[in-house]
């Protein structure tokens, strides 16, 4: 087990106690963090005992300890994956050189910006989800929500550590600002659009954790390749926690589908109205939620062509997903990549220099990963003998960022006029009425082993506990 200092206020494996300045800076930041958690974190939850998984070290036996914890007492530690003594930069202009243990002067500003952008998403999602605890469909789900929340909190800590440790005064100011911006705030919103959207209901939460936290996975994965070793090691460990968030999303939607299919089979109907009357979520509504979250999330990868992405890659700041497993030259100077553009009212692919298309490369990796999971959802319907299949909409559907933002495209990829779009948008994106219906199903279920009517119980509990385990205790 690496040297975690349990005697300090801030659990860590970075030998914090040997760096007084850093420790003081973080101790100064911590109360503000706790205040933020109090003000903006999960509502009405401070006193609950939650069966949480806490990392106490980064090795397999140490990072999944389960116990009842009050969330403000959660060990928001600083954990970096173990250092590999002679790690080499494996892409970009510095290929083959030793990885940096410090932020090189010429890349400081860019690295800081990358870290701040990543850091900003972590508290944002906690803010977006702060009301959800009041309408959890079961204790099991409530616990999963809180687990996601505390881990987002820990990821914020991880980024704040990097800012404090490697970016001096600017870093400290950025770390403070992370607690001052708020999701959806008029004056100081979160940096990225999707993180200012609301997560009003649990279907939205599952879609968010499935789609948007998966964006987190791919961004972290690209950062875990970074030449800046502390960033690589930090994000590597964050990835292990991120997996749980995607699990919550994937299994959440899966259970909603399972319950809907069950009711459809019982009532022998496919009529959305009849299905709604039975108190479960009809499949077209689920498809519309999917369309929304998917399209909003793929915007997070940024513009299709980006000179920043090229700079970040060439400089070795941010790699591709699974950079180490790819067999090209890792310089990409002579490569091209297809992106979409509109030509004569139609979508077509054009080849652009790969370096400028790296956002698109990551987006496409993400899309493959998401689609595979949607197919697993379809297996649930298939098994239940239901004909309906969920699909992900076309990449150009409902985009707000990049070349595609100016056009209207249907889920099947047909370019539309504004009129055609307006006439059909209610079929494709959740309407006010859909949202109101889903909201009407939300009510808190707190009896162990009981689940709201619109969702099936999970196949197994957390940490092999039974489904009716008291995952959250209301004192």
């Amino acid at each position, binding site marked *: 087990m690496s040297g975690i200092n349990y005697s300090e206020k801030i659990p860590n494996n970075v030998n914090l106690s040997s760096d007084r300045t850093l420790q003081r800076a973080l101790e100064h930041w911590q109360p503000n963090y706790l205040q933020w958690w109090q003000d903006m974190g999960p509502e009405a939850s401070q006193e609950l005992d939650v069966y949480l998984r806490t990392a*106490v070290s980064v090795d397999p*036996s140490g990072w999944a*300890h389960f116990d009842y914890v009050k969330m403000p007492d959660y*060990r928001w530690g600083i954990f970096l994956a173990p250092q590999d003594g002679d790690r080499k930069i494996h892409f970009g202009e510095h290929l083959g050189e030793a990885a940096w243990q410090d932020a090189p002067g010429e890349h400081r500003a860019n690295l800081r910006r990358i870290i701040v952008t990543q850091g900003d998403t972590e508290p944002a999602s906690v803010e977006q989800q702060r009301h959800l605890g009041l309408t959890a469909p079961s204790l099991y789900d409530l616990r999963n929500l809180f687990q996601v929340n505390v881990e987002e909190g820990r990821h914020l800590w991880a980024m704040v550590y990097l800012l404090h440790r490697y970016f001096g005064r600017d870093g400290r100011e950025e770390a403070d600002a992370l607690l001052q911006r708020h999701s959806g705030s008029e004056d100081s919103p979160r940096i990225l659009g999707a993180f200012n959207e609301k997560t009003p209901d649990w279907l939205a939460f599952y879609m968010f954790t499935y789609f948007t936290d998966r964006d987190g996975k791919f961004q972290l994965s690209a950062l875990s390749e970074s030449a800046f070793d502390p960033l690589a090691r930090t994000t590597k460990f964050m990835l292990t926690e991120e997996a*749980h968030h*995607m699990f919550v999303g994937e299994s959440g939607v899966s259970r909603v589908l399972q319950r809907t299919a069950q009711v459809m089979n019982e009532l022998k109907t496919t009529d959305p109205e009849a299905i709604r009357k039975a108190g479960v979520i009809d499949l077209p509504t689920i498809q519309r939620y999917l369309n929304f979250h998917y399209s909003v999330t793929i915007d997070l990868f940024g513009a299709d062509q980006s000179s920043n992405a090229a700079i970040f890659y060439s400089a070795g700041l941010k790699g591709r997903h699974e950079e180490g497993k790819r067999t090209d030259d890792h310089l990409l100077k002579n490569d091209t990549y297809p992106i979409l553009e509109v030509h004569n009212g139609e979508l077509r692919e054009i080849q652009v220099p790969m370096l400028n298309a790296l956002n698109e490369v990551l987006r496409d990796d993400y899309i493959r990963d998401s689609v595979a999971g949607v197919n697993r959802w379809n297996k649930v319907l298939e098994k239940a003998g239901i004909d309906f299949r969920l699909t992900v909409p076309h990449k150009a559907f409902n985009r707000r960022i990049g070349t595609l933002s100016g056009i209207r495209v249907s889920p099947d990829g047909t370019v539309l006029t504004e009129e055609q779009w307006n006439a059909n948008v209610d079929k494709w994106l959740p309407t006010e009425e859909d949202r109101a219906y889903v909201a009407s199903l939300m009510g808190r279920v707190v009896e162990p082993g009981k689940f709201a009517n619109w969702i099936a119980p999970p196949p197994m509990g957390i940490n*092999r506990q039974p489904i009716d385990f008291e995952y959250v205790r209301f004192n």
Partner: protein
Amino acid sequence: MTTATTVMKQHLIDPEICIRCNTCEETCPIDAITHDSNNYVVDASICNDCMACVPPCPTGAIDNWIQVVSDNAYSIEEQFTWDELPEPQEAPEGAEVVEAKAPAAPTASEAQEQEGDQDLENKPFTAAGASIPPWSAAHPYTNLYTHKNPVTATVVGNYRVTDSDTDSDIHHIVLDMGDTPMPLLEGQSIAIFPAGEDENGRSYHARQYSIASPRDGERPGYNNLSITVKRVVEDHDGKPVKGVCSNYLCDLQKNDSVKLIGPYGNSFLMPNLPDSNLVMICTGTGAAPMRAMTEHCRRLNKEGKYRGKLMLFFGARSERELPYFGPLMNLPKDFIDINLALSRQADRPKKYVQDVIRERASDVLALINDSKTCIYVCGLKGMEEGVLAALKDIVTESGKKWEDVHAQLKTQGRLHFETY
């Protein structure tokens, strides 16, 4: 004669639950896990069932061990095509079941560990303390031997450690493991199957006993261990009963064999640093793990490798009912600070461990405030209440909030209970 067919448990990932997050592949130390665009799979020819991948998996999909006939293990190519897990394969007649591949590494939690042993006789109370070990603790092996593959040990010593004229009959029993690997740490326990059957003709459940010997054996360098067993002649309410396993054990003769399983316990473990302090609080046979820890420190001390403080609170009715009283009193005062709490001494007021803890409040407090101190409580169920109350008083009087200190001791793996 034909060669015996064996059936084994193959490590498989449930494709219906797995979310393809890659955590397991990242975690496996020997690259036994791989994936294609469809599934994540475990290569049976590589996986050694070390369990490292199990706690990090967010879904539990990885925790599947399905019976297969050993010549018929599923290849990774087959697994890539699966949509769901197969049913266990039928064992052919006369097949030998090898459960050789039992989890060897510490698993994520006590709950997980106990799951496989639902039919152990009773569960210790541990909840008031930490569910994690001190950070420096050595890694324990758990569940090496289970109901399906128990092992046999030989009795090489059995003698009484309480005075013969007292009601309390406590035995020190030494078991030799022969060639069977049984790596143990102080604070762990094993479970023993009493011989015979219950009134319904079923074998008795196994009973747990704390290990009383240190990690290098009762006799250093030998593959043996000791336990401390109290003969049960009345139940908790004082009604006369003949305890099944304790009487069986206390009556064993040299060279008898004993069937056992384990080891158990992955949190009631001692810190592994030369300057850590131990506060040990016990009654009766709760002395067993304390003896193990003390003896380990004593052996280290002899080689100049231990510099911490040991403080012991030991409760019994009288000195003569204290197991190991003689050897205990021979330990140097500057090595261990012994505090006896005797509840039946002529002309003296009754004293329980919590009373003596209060008498030593300032020393106990200093140790609690020292992050290098771990506290262990072991003995009969119910004793934890008095001990907790005493600790609470001491901390509160010092102006701190007990709830905070208690929570901290727990999250730091510094306070442990095991009462039964």
